[in-house]
């Protein structure tokens, strides 16, 4: 979908309401925070029928023509032209703006001068930076934080084929990165990576990508592989059915905006600089998540008295990076009975460079030292919720500030549904409901466990949510 001089038009379908203050927006545009983005590989107006009444309101089309922008606008779409390095940046942006797009999306690694020039050319129109992860917080005041760098969520093939009776399955995920970013910023977060090339991407794998971002409060910028897009263009029944499932899943998260507002919960807190190791996937946060331990990321910069409230265990990766005030917070934490684990001697948390978004072998080996200690420290403890029969899953546990409502998202990264999942919650919950994108909404039987309440879930296809109330 990328190419020399290409223009992607990111069109945002109006869902409801008036524009939320962004200049150049159609009166029918939703607030930027509600934009649900997707890359759109077609430029004909008829293709917009595929969106129907679904949740997707961001479409990537090529080429970006005035006709398409007008069609999109007439359907309540706002349009963003995506400019990539290699374009004549300013000319391309101006041409797109002349075609009446709503704004510009700069995809890739641009110089500060180029970004400033495009912003100036855009005038009041929005400019979204779909840049590398290590630049994402440089523009933290932006209406949308976005990156085109992400891992493709799922269980690596080698994991499926692994030898030996031991271990837990590894899961590739962007959730650690997303959770770190969301702890540092309230802005909407988009992950705009694309499907792996030369790979058959099934509907389930697309849904895993949607859910991977959705359960952590972000949005995956939906991107179709060429084969799927071609079949969908021909209105192939199977492709249409798969597309419907994908839209239903995206809609599932959009129907519950309250979930995005819930803070993450876990009696284990991870203090990490989101602009350093927190930018990586496969780091300590993901390692802990694979073990189904609820962990709350705390940006180093936000470490203040009260930020470790409710935590009984804390991990501080980079002891040398703390200010004296931050050290005092951790000292008070341990004095009040908390257990603190610090990184190995000499460990410094470093920001990734270039295109790197995962740890290399040497870094993984170093991280293993602290990982073993974390694992040992956590043991069988229930730090908010424990999951059983969930080896192919990741979860995110969210609890309202008053503690009365909790939400547990489950995402299954295997190609098969998982049956008979058990969850055990800390706390005195009186009601539990199971919700799924397939439309299930039913009460779950709660039963008493060693340290709280348990519930059993019959089946998780790709995604399910347990909603708890005290």
């Amino acid at each position: 979908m990328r190419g020399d001089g290409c223009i992607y038009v990111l069109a945002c379908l109006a869902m409801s309401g008036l524009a939320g203050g962004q200049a150049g927006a159609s009166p029918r545009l939703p607030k930027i925070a509600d934009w649900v983005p997707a890359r759109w590989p077609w430029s004909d107006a008829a293709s917009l029928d595929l969106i129907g009444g679904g949740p997707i309101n961001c479409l990537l089309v090529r080429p970006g023509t005035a006709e398409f922008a007008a069609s999109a606008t007439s359907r309540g779409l706002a349009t963003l032209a995506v400019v990539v390095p290699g374009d004549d940046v300013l000319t391309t942006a101006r041409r797109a703006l002349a075609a009446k797009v709503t704004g510009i999306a700069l995809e890739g690694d641009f110089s500060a001068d180029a970004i400033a020039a495009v912003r100036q050319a855009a005038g009041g129109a929005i400019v979204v930076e779909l840049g590398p992860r290590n630049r994402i917080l440089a523009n933290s005041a932006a209406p949308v934080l976005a990156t085109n760098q992400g891992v493709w969520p799922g269980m690596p093939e080698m994991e499926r084929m692994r030898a030996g009776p031991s271990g837990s399955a590894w899961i590739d995920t962007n959730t650690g990165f997303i959770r770190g970013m969301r702890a540092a910023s309230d802005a909407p977060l988009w992950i705009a990576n694309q499907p792996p090339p030369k790979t058959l991407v099934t509907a389930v794998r697309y849904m895993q990508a949607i859910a991977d971002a959705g359960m952590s409060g972000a949005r995956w910028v939906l991107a179709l592989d060429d084969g799927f897009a071609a079949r969908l263009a021909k209105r192939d029944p199977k492709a249409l059915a798969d597309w419907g499932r994908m839209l239903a899943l995206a809609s599932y998260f959009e129907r519950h905006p309250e979930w995005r507002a819930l803070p993450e919960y876990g009696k284990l807190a991870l203090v990490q600089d989101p602009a350093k190791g927190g930018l990586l996937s496969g780091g300590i946060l993901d390692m802990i998540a694979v073990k189904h331990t609820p962990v709350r990321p705390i940006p180093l910069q936000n470490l203040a008295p009260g930020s470790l409230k409710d935590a009984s265990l804390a991990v501080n990766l980079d002891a040398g990076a703390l200010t004296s005030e931050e050290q005092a917070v951790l000292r008070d934490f341990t004095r009040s009975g908390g257990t603190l684990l610090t990184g190995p001697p000499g460990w410094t948390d470093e920001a990734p460079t270039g295109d790197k978004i995962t740890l290399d072998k040497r870094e993984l080996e170093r991280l293993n030292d602290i990982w073993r200690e974390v694992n040992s420290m956590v043991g069988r403890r229930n730090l908010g919720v424990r999951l059983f029969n969930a080896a192919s899953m990741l979860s995110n546990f969210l609890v309202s500030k008053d503690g009365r409502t909790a939400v547990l998202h489950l995402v299954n990264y295997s190609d098969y549904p998982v049956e008979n999942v058990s969850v055990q919650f800390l706390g005195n919950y009186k009601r539990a409901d199971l919700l799924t994108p397939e439309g299930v909404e039913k009460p779950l039987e709660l039963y008493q466990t060693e340290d709280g309440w348990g519930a059993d879930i019959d089946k998780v296809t790709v995604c399910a949510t347990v909603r708890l109330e005290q």
Partner: protein
Amino acid sequence: MMTRREWIATISAAPLLREASAATAAPVAPVSIARCASYDEDVTAKLGVLFDQLGGLGGLVRGKTVTIKLNMTGSPSIRLRGLAPALTHYVHPKVVGGVAYHLGQAGARRIRFVESAWATAGPLEETMLDSGWNVRALQSAAAGVEFENTNALGKSKSYARFKVPGNAYMYPAYDLNRAFEDTDVFVSLAKLKNHATCGVTLSLKNCFGSLPASIYGDDAGVDEPNESPTSGRDRVGHQGRRQPSKSAPQELNFGANHDPGYRVPHIVADLSAARPIHLAIVEGVESMAGGEGPWVQGVRAVKPGVLIAGLNPVCTDAAAAAVMGYNPRAGRGTAPFQTCDNTLLLAEGHGVGAADLGRIDVRGVSIAQALYRYDS
């Protein structure tokens, strides 16, 4: 290819001469076989038929404590194409619950499920939950149901020592979790499947998993048990590269043999003599062929649709091996024992039971009718 009738005749009538004396001296007991095509069938009723064909369980278990060694090999997170472990390499919880129900109905006072859960000393119930089992349903299958992870001390304060009667093959005695001693009746509830090291996993091989990793594990303590084991038993049991914790009896001829195909069958045979099995149950409704777990290359899911039980583990395993299409008296080099010694014959050598199909009273469905060739 031989007909079923010809094949049964062959494996029944051709015991090796050198094993003939052990085969004729070793005890025999009836073996019962029932068809059960699916876990959706009334598994409990099928088990009832199976036990009735053995004369019922009342005489064996009434008023007694019964300990059942389950077959839950490897980490529950490692799966064959996402299938639940019970559909491939673990015994199925419906069978487990059905067995508990019948033991309860027969008057068992206490029913204790045991297994040395992979790489953990945590509660066995948590491994069951991680396997997708409904622990609450198991607890309600009968009165007095308990669980014990025998990978370490568990709920006890000391280990129990089981001496191998006569001439032990590998170790003079084995230290096991006390649950194996504090019982009146010992049941091995195994899966009908192959094993990469031992050829077959049946009721005898299942008991290799009785060894606590705290003592026999790769990370066992040198002097004393490690009560937080996190590994398997490869270096002690399979490879003979290290001794178990010094607190336990040491290997007789340490360093003499590092062949897993020799070592594991001999250890299993020792265990079968040291900790006798009173009731052997082999579950083959759905299973796995080609190995004992998804980590073995080339394994495949199979549906033999059969349940087997007997009052002697060697006889039961002999019938089960025959149901799998193997000669239970085959020697090393012949399937399924291509690279290992025959555990059944080694147990027979200890006088545990006879692997001679000609002497075994098979009840219910015949071996020929139940035949499901694992090497097809």
